C-alpha cells in the first residue's frame, strides 16, 4: 500500500482528490498536441490506444480482421493537480473526421477544447473546428508558434477560420510550460464566460 503519494515517483492521484475535470487538446496531425500536454503534465505523458471498431462487430467475422484492426488511435494524455481536491486531465484528441466515434466518447464530460493551430497550415484546421462544433464543445484557438514575431496576424487567422468574435485566439509555444499554461487559462476564462 502506497501511503505516500507526495513522492515524486508516485503515479497515483492523492486520496484527497474528489473531483476530476477533462479538457481536450485538439488539432490536426503533428500540430503539437502531445508536446503541449507534455509541457503541462505533472506525470510523464501517457499513451493509450482505442480501437475504432467495436470488438463485438469483429467477432462475427474474424476473417475480416486485418483490415479493421489497423484503425487504432493513440490517445496521449497528461495530468495536473490543481488543488488538494481537484485534478485536471488533458486529452490529446486527433482531428480526423474518421475518428468521430472516439470524439463522442472524448467530448462527453469535457469542459471544453484547446484547439491548436499551425498558422502555416490553416486549412488543416477546418475539419477540427467542424468536430468541436458538432459536439458542442466550447473552444479557444492556440496558435502554436516557435518564435515571437507572430508572422500571422490574429485578424488573418480569425478571418481564415471564420471565428466568432468572442472566440479567444492566443499565441503559444507548446514546448514552453508557462506559455502553454497561459493558453489553457485563456480557454478556461472563456469557458467561464460562456457558462454564465
Amino acid at each position, binding site marked *: *500500500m*502506497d501511503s505516500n503519494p507526495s513522492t515524486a515517483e*508516485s*503515479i*497515483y*492521484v*492523492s*486520496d484527497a*482528490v*474528489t*473531483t*476530476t*475535470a*477533462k*479538457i481536450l487538446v485538439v488539432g490536426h496531425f503533428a500540430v503539437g498536441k502531445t508536446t503541449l500536454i507534455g509541457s503541462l503534465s505533472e506525470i510523464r505523458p*501517457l*499513451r*493509450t*490506444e*482505442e*480501437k475504432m471498431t*467495436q*470488438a*463485438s462487430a*469483429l*467477432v462475427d467475422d474474424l476473417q475480416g*480482421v*486485418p483490415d479493421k*484492426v*489497423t484503425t*487504432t488511435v493513440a*490517445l496521449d*494524455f497528461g*495530468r*495536473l493537480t*490543481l*488543488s488538494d481536491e*481537484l*485534478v*485536471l*486531465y488533458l*486529452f490529446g484528441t486527433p482531428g480526423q473526421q474518421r475518428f468521430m466515434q472516439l470524439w463522442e*466518447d*472524448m467530448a*462527453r*464530460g*469535457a*469542459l*471544453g477544447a484547446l484547439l491548436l493551430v499551425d498558422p502555416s497550415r490553416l486549412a488543416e484546421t477546418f475539419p477540427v473546428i467542424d468536430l468541436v462544433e458538432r459536439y*458542442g464543445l466550447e473552444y479557444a484557438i492556440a496558435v502554436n508558434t516557435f518564435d515571437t514575431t507572430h508572422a500571422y496576424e490574429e485578424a488573418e487567422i480569425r478571418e481564415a477560420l471564420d471565428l466568432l468574435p468572442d472566440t479567444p485566439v492566443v499565441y503559444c509555444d507548446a514546448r514552453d510550460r*508557462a506559455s502553454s*499554461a497561459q493558453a*489553457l*487559462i485563456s480557454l*478556461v*476564462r472563456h*469557458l*467561464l464566460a460562456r*457558462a*454564465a
Partner: protein
Amino acid sequence: MTAGEEEPVAGDFVRAYVITGGRRLPSSDELSLHTLVTVGPDKELPLGASPEVRAIWDLLSGGYLAVAEVAAHLELPVGVARLLLTDLFEQGLLLRRAAPPRAQSVDRGIIERVLHGLESLYG
C-alpha cells in the same frame, strides 16, 4: 516490458478479444476516461481472475488512478480496460470517485475551480 509488446496488430486484437470474452465493450457512461478508481478496502482479488484483472488489481492496490491511466500503465486498449474495471466495479470490489455528471451541461463551479487552480499555479 509486456508479453504483448512485440505482437503484430492482429495478434493484439485477438488478445483483446480473449480478455473480454468477446463481449460488447461498455459505453463510457459508467466509467469515463477521467473517473478515478481504486480497490475497495478489505476486498480480495476474485479467485480465478485473469492475468489482466490481476494486473489491474495490483496496480490499483496502490491508490487512485483514472480509467485512462489504468489502460496506459497496463498497455490495454481503453475499451478493454473499461470493461474489466466495470466488471470489478459491478462486483462491488472497486471504489469510484469523481464520477462526472451525466448531464451534457458543464458545472460552472468546476470551471471556476479549474480557473482558480491554474491561476494560482501559473498566474
